[in-house]
């Protein structure tokens, strides 16, 4: 529903949608016909899937997966988060940063 469409046959896993991968399959449209069909994990908004209503700036456990090594906010295109939740996530992360719960940047 919320995720992007998946190429080829149905991707098997339905689970958590925060996959940090999948980018490399994008630019191979033509080649894909000759090669094996590409399997791409279907991305689902984690907050919709897990029914997390409250994206709270105090909950570092929840936010940490969305700020990988460089401490930048993981883009929607990669995490698969829906627009509404990405917005809420953003405010939460920015508040947590002010309170030094999450870094602005990694050294």
């Amino acid at each position, binding site marked *: 529903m919320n995720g992007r469409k998946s190429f080829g046959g149905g991707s098997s896993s*339905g*689970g*958590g949608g*925060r996959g*940090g991968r999948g980018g490399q399959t994008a630019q191979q449209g033509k080649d894909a016909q000759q090669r094996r069909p590409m399997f791409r994990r279907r991305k689902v908004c984690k907050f919709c899937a897990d*029914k997390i*209503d*409250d994206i709270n*700036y*105090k909950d*570092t*456990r929840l936010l*940490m*997966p*969305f*700020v*990988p*090594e460089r401490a930048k906010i*993981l883009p929607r295109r990669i995490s698969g988060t829906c627009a509404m939740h990405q917005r809420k996530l953003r405010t939460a992360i920015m*508040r947590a*940063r*002010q*309170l*030094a*719960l*999450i*870094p*602005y940047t990694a050294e």
Partner: protein
Amino acid sequence: MSRKYELVYIVSPDATEDQVTDLHTQVDGIVQRMGGQIEKTDNWGRRRLAYEIGRHKEGTYVLEVINGSGELMKEIDRRLKVFDLVIRHLVVRVDDDQEVIERTRSRRSEASRRRRIARGLPPDRLPGEGQRGEPDDDRDDRFDMGEDLR
């Protein structure tokens, strides 16, 4: 007009326990004086900061949930800026968001009950009924950044 706010402030690690409680009483004093009330206080204790503030690497976090007016919070904000012991603070209004969360939650459970009744099932899910959930994905540590930041 009373609203609900959350105030988090970080006290310098050099401060003693007494100074932290003293700070709390000061905040309480302002709140009392301006006709608000503190709903909850939570001392998170000493935590590592994600980055240095000033030259501090640690700090004591205190959370206060306050019912009061915007004027009151403005005053508290102004006062906290002055205290040298408070190295960072944040005021967030929460009542609206909580209401929205409450509403989505109740709407969801209501919808599920309606669907269950339509299917001729008891409105509430019985223990052990339905599909087994997938194994918990929370253990995924791909993006975790180490224990010390928690």
